[in-house]
């Protein structure tokens, strides 16, 4: 018998082929071969490009923030739409974070950008609901590829502080939704406090009630404090941390409150594009009151080391068909892992407090 027979050779070939096939399939699943995929790292890289550099240790978006704590009092009415425990009558602890859009943790507050509120709401039965919201009912883009393109196009030119028109013009021509958003932001009132802004869910979500009926819902937290706008002509004159100092001073005097309004989609409402507002009358349920009674700098608050991933939802609430939700979840996770590796650094508010302390 020859030491290396034809049968043995073909057996080796079969084994080699099986291993190679598995390696190939694995490489395809991982996106190492085949069509290029957009992953979370692409989003964080685009945000870092827009900021000018990676701000190590900070969130890659909404880097400037302050922690808060309080409670949500459910009134039971939301149970008509969802089995989530947060909608049952009762008071549940909340932590959260106010922030301004952008990747620079020390940027000035006088910018016509998103004012944002993020929340983590826990109920005693172990359910957890994470929310990340902006003060506008619409978002500039509807999908992750456009979001990356937006970050690249709007990178401020160091000389002018404004996006390069040569890049911006063709981008806006290709993205009428961004143009519409910019027009909206030009006209919209820019709240002069974190406490008097309405915060919107950005995306639609799928609510399921006790009977198993599923409805598409957007929500908004409407403030009890009356909305007053900033003077948009003189934003640059504002002190760096004006909005943050305002919420610290305001909260020292007393709590701020919001009502959680759940809006049920009408037939024909766009549910998979955050760029499209729902207009006209909607079935609306006031599900309860959010009370924020304490704020803390990120150094001592509970919000810094949290990922406010809007796809962390209790039973009774699920993601909708809006593709932006998965992209947000992935991008937040990528940013979270990066800053976890880098280690955290001081916040603007924390620096202010340290300076005050030194005086």
């Amino acid at each position, binding site marked *: 018998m020859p030491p290396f027979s034809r049968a043995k050779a073909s057996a080796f070939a079969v*084994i080699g082929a099986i291993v190679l096939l598995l390696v190939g399939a694995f490489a395809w699943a*991982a996106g190492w071969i085949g069509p290029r995929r957009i992953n979370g790292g692409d989003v964080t890289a685009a945000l870092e490009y827009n900021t000018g550099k990676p701000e190590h240790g900070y969130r890659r978006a909404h880097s400037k923030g302050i922690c808060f704590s309080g409670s949500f009092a459910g009134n039971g009415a939301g149970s008509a739409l969802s089995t989530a425990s947060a909608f049952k009558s009762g008071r549940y602890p909340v932590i959260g974070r106010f922030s301004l859009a952008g990747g620079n943790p020390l940027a000035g507050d006088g910018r016509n950008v998103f004012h944002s509120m993020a929340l983590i709401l826990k109920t005693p039965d172990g359910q957890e609901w994470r929310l990340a919201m902006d003060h506008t009912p619409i978002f500039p883009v509807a999908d992750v590829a456009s979001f990356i393109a937006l970050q690249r196009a709007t990178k401020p030119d160091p000389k002018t502080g404004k996006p390069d028109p040569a890049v911006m013009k063709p981008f806006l021509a290709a993205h009428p939704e961004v143009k519409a958003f910019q027009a909206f932001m030009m006209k919209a009132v820019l709240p002069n406090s974190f406490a008097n802004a309405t915060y919107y869910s950005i995306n639609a979500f799928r609510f399921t009630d006790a009977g198993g009926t599923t409805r598409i819902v957007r929500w908004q937290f409407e403030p009890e404090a009356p909305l007053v706008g900033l003077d948009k002509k003189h934003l640059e004159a504002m002190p760096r941390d004006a909005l943050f100092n305002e919420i610290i001073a305001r909260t020292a005097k007393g709590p701020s409150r919001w009502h959680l309004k759940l809006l049920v989609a009408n037939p024909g409402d766009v549910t998979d594009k955050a760029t499209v507002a729902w207009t006209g009358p909607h079935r609306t349920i006031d599900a309860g009151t959010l009370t924020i009674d304490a704020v803390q700098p990120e150094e001592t608050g509970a919000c810094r080391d949290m990922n406010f991933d809007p796809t*962390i939802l209790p039973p009774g609430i699920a993601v909708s068909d809006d593709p932006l939700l*998965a992209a947000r979840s992935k991008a937040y996770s990528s940013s979270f892992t990066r800053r976890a590796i880098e280690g955290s650094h001081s916040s603007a508010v924390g620096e202010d407090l340290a300076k005050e302390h030194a005086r």
Partner: protein
Amino acid sequence: MNRRSPDFHPALRLIHWLMVALVFTMLFVGVGMVSTAGPAYVSLLALHRPIGIAILALVLVRLPLRLATGAPPLPDDLPTMQKRIAWGSHVLLYLTLFAMPLIGWGMLSAGGYPVQVTKGFTLPPILPHDLRLYAVLREAHTVIALLFFALILAHLAAALMHGLIRRDGVFRSMTTGHRRVPATTSEHDHSEDTVRPLA
């Protein structure tokens, strides 16, 4: 318990192949969900956690069963070094089957995430909320997963070498098992070589 049996216990074989399906699914789901920010990310993540916990539960049953029922002896003509490598690789496979779900669970705990296995089933944290710990475990989860896939490929290639080239009954000990033959047969089982004439 019969350590002289040429096969793994039938229950072990069943769990082995069940875990083959789960672990392969898990590795492909894992690298797939990391690769995309598309809607598949959310669906794959929702699969990843329950499968991970299922693997942990299965290996918790499997290891005691394996220790209790033993493994069939490797062929006498196998070089000692190869036997040692075989033993070491099996220890590593078992270790990883325990480690990966536990690292995943620990990583979510350290990241301050709820360990939501399914929509209605959340596990308690097993580590304190600590971002540095999260960073280390998150990195380890990826590195060990890739090494695990390589180890599984080596395990598979070795098993196929036994089944297709050496034909020494080792492959059969984890698949169909050996035909029951009278106790007078030689110590060595060559049933995979050829169809033997009736002994």
